[in-house]
């Protein structure tokens, strides 16, 4: 496949960025999207016409199997590109056509500033979780694992919520850059489990306050996050978060 790439290039967090166009040839349709960018970078590094090596395109990636949540591109207008329930590293070139022009942009949100090219800073997510996204239990405190039975349905639903990989596609795709799906996935997971109930009020308060503080937008229930979430996390969890939060405030 031969492709034209329109890629966002930005030197650092303070610099002004712009799009650059690149031509790339002979990409196998079985390659993953990131392997295609690898090939672009290889071409940029080894471009013999240029005496000084051109800088390759910087992008975040690590596990390349859709679970670490590090990869993050906005491809042709969609978070993680044109396929359902995948991350960018799982996107394959067979989803494109020979001769296509592909627009590649970083996540765009106040909470996720660009630090170079296609890389963004997602520490805001860590900060939200640090504010309360855990069960306070020191190592060694635990009773026997089977001491608290948890119904299969509850456990499965908690697992659905817990499958969040923290990639930020929800924020990136939301027209308001809202982080509600991310926050909800954690609050909902822990609210569903008896172990997490004891501090669920405190947790919902703290995490929402932190989310608001970090400049994310308000959820207007458009539902785009759910569609673009690589793990298909449901809006039901946002409803549960709202429930937890309202209960925490109105029936303290």
């Amino acid at each position, binding site marked *: 496949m031969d492709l034209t790439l329109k890629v966002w290039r930005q030197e650092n967090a303070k610099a002004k960025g712009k799009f650059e166009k690149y031509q790339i040839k002979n990409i196998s349709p079985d390659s993953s999207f990131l392997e295609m960018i690898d090939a672009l970078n290889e071409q940029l590094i080894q471009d013999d016409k240029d005496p000084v090596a051109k800088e390759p395109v910087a992008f975040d990636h690590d596990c390349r199997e859709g679970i670490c949540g590090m990869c993050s591109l906005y491809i042709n207008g969609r978070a993680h590109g044109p396929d359902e329930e995948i991350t960018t590293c799982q996107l394959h070139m067979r989803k494109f056509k020979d001769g296509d022009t592909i*627009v590649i942009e970083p996540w765009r949100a106040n909470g996720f500033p660009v630090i170079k090219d296609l890389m963004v800073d997602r520490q805001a997510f860590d900060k939200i979780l640090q504010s309360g996204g855990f069960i306070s239990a020191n190592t060694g405190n635990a009773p026997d694992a089977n001491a608290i039975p948890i119904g299969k349905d509850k456990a499965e639903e908690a697992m659905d919520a817990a499958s969040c990989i923290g990639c930020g596609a929800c924020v990136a795709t939301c027209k308001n850059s809202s982080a509600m799906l991310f926050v909800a996935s954690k609050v909902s997971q822990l609210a569903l489990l008896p172990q997490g109930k004891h501090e669920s009020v405190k947790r919902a308060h703290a995490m929402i306050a932190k989310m608001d503080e970090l400049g994310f937008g308000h959820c207007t229930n458009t539902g785009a996050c759910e569609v673009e979430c690589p793990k298909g996390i449901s809006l039901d969890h946002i409803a549960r978060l709202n429930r937890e939060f309202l209960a925490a405030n109105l029936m303290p």
Partner: protein
Amino acid sequence: MLKFLNSSIGKKFLMSLSGLFLLTFLLVHLILNSFILFDSSGALFNQAAHFMATNPIIKVVEPVLAIGFILHIFYAIILTLHNLTTRPVGYDKQKLGHSSSWSSRNMFILGLVVLTFLVIHVANFFWKIKFTGDELLEHGVVDGVENAYLLVTTFFIDWWWIVITYVIGSIALGLHLFHSVWSAFQTLGFSNQLWRRRLTLIALVVSIVIAGGFALIPLWVKISSML
């Protein structure tokens, strides 16, 4: 409580509550208006309008309704203004059509259209009935019941553009409601897979009934006058 109302969910909570309250008002309003369709003499409608204008309970609800509108509009502005700041650099290319409905993404615009319509509507009828009065209202007054029917129908019959404005306003309202019914319940925490389907269906029915109903009245009046 102040902290709660200042939080993002707190603000949306007020949006939802005020929105649902306004929805009940719309339903009552539509039922009363539909009397225009059922009785071409106008007596039924005039009775109802008179009742609404004089009943003490309604008098109490009226300012509450006004507060509902103000809250809904005020928080819509606050929330939207904030949401406009959350993506300082926009995307070059963004596709959202497959992942969210057009109306869900344009609630504020739809709200503005509805608001504009509302101002026209209030100026046309409510203001006259309530404050300034109009000679059409005085026409054929029976037992102190003013002829609101005549005021309304004359308006629609005389002015095509008023009819069109009302139809546009109704459609905008319908689209606004189509997203808002489920959305309000979602924000209040009342939704899951099952209820989401139910509420979306209810939203569809509600928005068609309300938008269709409000659009039908001026059209009906105008068209039947031409027959």
